[in-house]
């Protein structure tokens, strides 16, 4: 009995280690965009970013994660990672990926962070133009309601870039 318990406990630890390896869990600590295409639904988003002007200035995490503190960054990363793994496991992601309101807020904060010189006037005067108030983002309106191409292009369904041979993770 005692030996069986010990064996099963060790097996559970081994299985966990194997799970970490199979899921490449540790790679997610990196900020390399290639890590984001470990799962194929992100391939189109990677390919379209790779063909955009943003590729030389901003990686995935530069736009999609908050930069105010390391803690918030890691918290957001873990939360996104958890949601993504659920979606991947239960295949609930659909044919077009959409950002959550929380992610939209972070992204827009980052748009403003980099382009603040350009948008400072807009920020200061956003009140009168705030026609479609959207409480989830600064200024009440999402940048990409108008800048729809930036940076992934307007077409980014999961099968849009099927013959893109840039980087494939197998």
């Amino acid at each position, binding site marked *: 009995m005692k030996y069986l*318990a*010990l064996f*099963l406990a060790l097996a559970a630890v081994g299985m966990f280690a194997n799970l970490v390896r199979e899921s490449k869990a540790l790679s997610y600590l990196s900020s390399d965009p290639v890590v984001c295409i470990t*799962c194929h639904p992100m391939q189109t988003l990677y390919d379209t970013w790779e063909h955009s002007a943003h590729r030389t200035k901003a990686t995935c995490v530069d736009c999609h994660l908050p930069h105010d503190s390391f803690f918030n960054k890691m918290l957001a990363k873990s939360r996104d990672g958890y949601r993504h793994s659920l979606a991947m*496991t239960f295949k609930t992601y659909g044919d077009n990926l959409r950002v959550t309101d929380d992610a939209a807020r972070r992204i827009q904060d980052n748009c403003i962070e980099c382009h603040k010189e350009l948008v400072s006037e807009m920020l200061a005067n956003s009140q009168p133009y705030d026609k479609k108030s959207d409480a989830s983002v600064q200024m009440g309106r999402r940048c990409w309601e108008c800048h729809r191409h930036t940076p992934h292009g307007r077409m980014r369904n999961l099968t849009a870039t099927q013959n893109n041979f840039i980087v494939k993770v197998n």
Partner: protein
Amino acid sequence: MKKSTIVIILSVLVMVPMFLLTMSIRENKAEQQTINAVPAIPDGETRASEWGKHYPREYNTYMQTRKSDEIGDVLKEDPNIVILWAGYAFSKDYNKPRGHYYAIEDNINTLRTGAPVDANTGPQPPACWTCKSPDVPRVFKRDGEMEFFTGKWAKYGDEIVNPIGCGDCHDNKTMQLIVTREHLKRALDAEGSLKMADATHQDMRSLVCAQCHVEYYFKKTEWDDKGEKKMAAVVTLPWEKGFTPENMEEYYNSYGFTDFTHKLSKTPMLKAQHPGYETFRTGVHARNGLACADCHMPYMREGGVKYSSHKVGSPLDNIANTCLNCHKGTEQEFRKEVEEKLARKDELARQATAVIAKAHLEAARAWELGATEEEMKPAQQDIRSAQWRWDFAVAAHGAFFHAPEEILRTLANAIKKGQDARLKLRIVLAKYNAADYEAPEFATKEAAQEHIGIDMAKEVQEKKTFLNTLKQEWFKKAEEKGIFDPAMRKDMVLKTSY
């Protein structure tokens, strides 16, 4: 409950979901592999139509390169260039490039490749095929690189039949970009700033183009074919000392390399090919991490699919999907900007050819009057330098845009060297009582060709015979061998400058 029982229950409880999760991950990985799998294309398949069965959008856009079909006769536009190349086949026929689709057609049709009557005749070595076809890497593999570069151009007429296509840049097993020409790998490693082994995917999006759009020469190389000594003319890129015209000139001078001896001035000349990649590397777009494919193969939308256009050509045909990806402005503004750059280059290039042509003609006069080699040598060195610089600046037709400052600098130096030569020649002419010698000017390419003694009527007649006989046989034989799809040349219209 006993401690060990609790451990057993807990262990099993965590193992079950972990097991299921592991299974799910494996399933996802298997699915990913299926999604990423590429159709099997057999080794040595060089017919674009076969690859096109799996990649219809890429194939269709590739086939549209046949729309780039105008013959632009460079010699007609600037007859001075005929004088510059006196004694070299380029003075007979030199056109602006057409689409990739015409690579084989134009290589066969140009007067430069002559009029062979069988596999062992004609003026050129097989190296002239090197950049024209995916059949080249196929034959490299079959015959070996040295055998490929030995003998006459015509020996591979019925083997090299498919124009630049899929297999030149793509691995048939993985579809990844691949360098199929060994000369590029050797040159990158010799130059050293970007070793072949360190090339990223973004680098490869330029390097596949750099297999051909580069300066090269045919290096005479002796090799041993099972005991028999043979001489090969191997395509080699002169990059060992760097990418600038000065670097390459130093490389060529270091062992006295000469492409041809000028018929009028008797100068040992260099002929620049098309240093497109090298000049691009010195420009602002390269410094900002762009690759050739970013502008020459823009991302296209068709229905719900995005793909890279394989209609490789001028980005000005598609400004919205190229320049405007990164820049702000209107199409008109960009077109005007590029036209201005071109006009600046043309202005200096015209001055350069006028000066260098005069130098050649004045040197010819000096020789006629009995000038000695010792008297002529300093001027000849300037002529060689000047013409190399002019050629380097204009031969890659897009260089004026890729690296405007570098190209204008090079042209300015060409003009200066050319004038230096003329100054030295004037002193020699004065010595032989011809200080007031006026070199003739040529208004048409025909007049210039007559002056340098080319019998164009004979050249054209022989060529036409070749086009109607051997050329036709080549494609017929290739079709019989199963390496050529005749649909590829359907409705092809013969277009030449002669």
